[in-house]
């Protein structure tokens, strides 16, 4: 556990340092890329939202797998979400040893317990879709954080929309 934490912290530091230059590369894939890609896409983002929160790091959306968003009080996948999941699924199929933890999140409205259950549904919906796309179920775990670990704190729809998400964490190993 400590080793992983250290690895995650180092990686987080690398990402923070390299972040300025790397943000433009977010859309590029690295599947089959030649040799030792040091860029943050070849390696997982490492730390999940809770680990980052404990270390005092800001939550982020970086990493090879993108967030999937949901409507209020819903865990249905719309057209756009399915598109993101297809991309995520392709990455996972290209990196066949990679595992992913899928976090379910909600916006700040609504009660804590209901939102934890809703987050669990969202994470599960994303996982089920990836499994249907051919990713082995054993590579995917889920966890819900409800409204506890938001990306942003403003009290408006644009922030709430960002928070209603399934977030993917690919641990570095």
């Amino acid at each position, binding site marked *: 556990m400590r080793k992983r934490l250290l690895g995650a912290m180092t990686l987080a530091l690398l990402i923070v340092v390299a972040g300025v230059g790397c943000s433009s590369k977010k859309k590029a894939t690295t599947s089959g890329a030649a040799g030792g890609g040091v860029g943050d896409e070849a390696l997982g983002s490492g730390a999940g939202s809770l680990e980052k*929160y404990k270390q005092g790091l800001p939550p982020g959306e970086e990493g090879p797998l993108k967030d999937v968003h949901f409507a209020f009080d819903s865990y249905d996948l719309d057209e756009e979400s399915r598109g993101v999941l297809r991309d995520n699924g392709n990455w996972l199929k290209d990196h066949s040893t990679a595992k992913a933890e899928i976090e379910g999140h909600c916006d700040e*409205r*609504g009660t804590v317990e209901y939102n934890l*259950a809703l987050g*669990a*549904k969202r994470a*599960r919906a994303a996982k089920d879709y990836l499994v249907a796309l051919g990713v082995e179920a054993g590579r995917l775990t889920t966890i819900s954080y409800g409204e506890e670990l938001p990306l942003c704190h403003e009290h408006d729809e644009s922030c709430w929309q960002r928070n209603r998400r399934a977030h993917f964490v690919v641990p570095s190993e």
Partner: protein
Amino acid sequence: MKRSWLVVGALLGIFMRAPETSRAQVKGTIFGPGERSYPIALSPLKSLSGGGGDLATQFADIIGRDLSLTGYFKLLDRAAYIEKPDASGYTAETINFDNWSVIGALALMKGAYTLEGDNLTIEVRLFDVYQRRQLAGRRYHGSASELRRMANKFADEIMTQFTGERGPFDSRIAFASTRDGRFKEIYAMSPDSGDLQQLTKTSTINISPSWSPDSRVLLYTSYKTRNPNLYAIDFFGGRETRISDRPGLNLGGKFSPDGTKIALTVEENGNADIVVVDRSGGLVRRITDNWSIDVSPTWSPDGRQIAFTSNRAGGPQIYVAGVDGGEARRVTFTGTYNTSPAWSPKGDRIAYVSRLDGGFNLFTVKVDGGDPHQLTQGTGDNEDPSWAPDGRYLVFSSSRGGHSKLFVTDASGSSQVQLTHGGGDDTSPAWSRWLD
């Protein structure tokens, strides 16, 4: 914890109470209907032994804070009091009631204390100023650290005298808070907001505390080992047991009224359902078993039914199911988003949170689903209701002032008083039963 003082207090209470006949005519005539500002003076205690520091005023202050939460009383400003406690009597025969009627008091609390080492004895009485007579009296004996319990018990006694029902203040309120940093930890305090104690120090997320019926154990959910597990922690001594660590959510644990079982939300394949387990976490019974989100169990006072939140009808609503099985029935029919049920200790109503016009507000509804009553409106998000042990008050979390703070309201919503202040967010309050 010393129990001797209880016995002494009870015995002497009998001798110092007003005779039964006059008490019967006093109840119901002291408070008129809708009484909201009954003027009461709370005199600091007279010191019979010296020492004690500010104990004399602390006792009166605690009772003052308790009574200010009830919505019944107007606390007269101590600066207006004419007499000094140490120079005046504290019995019906020795009190100069004119000194109190002249400042507008209709009720008066007066008493004395002795402190010998750590042994504290408090003798305190409640008077009707106009009739110039004693309504109630108590003697408490214990360690100096039990001052707060003595004060809360007498506040409850004052409520008994004026309303016919025991007040809720000899109890505790637990809650989750980020007051000491970014992590949500579990705290507990007395209802007068004193005796604040931090019960967890985990540097992670801790939520949904709830009390055992004897108020000695607190259940809560923590992410401290990554999976959100359900723990039980002893209020005295802090010994902790892990009750349920099923993969996924182990959330919203609530003791049954007889303390032998725990209802909680668990998760299977992303689906939240309510189960009942024994005190070591072994499954006793499933309460729900379907595709919908089912969360937030709350027991009826007779332990026979559980109310909970379910979105089986599309959006979240409150349902009631028998613990022994049978179909759940819906009890909320107004609004599209109703969560967070809390069953009143009186058994007749369930409090819950309803989303209205973008904000969240407190409601209560009859157990059969009738007569929904709104308690808060237009004041930010009001969530997480928890009933006081007397079933007449609720503590809840409100963001009306910006950050989430705890408030106390009466069951009608007409008296709402802020309970916690300061930094961070205070959420998820749980009001225990009486401490004995």
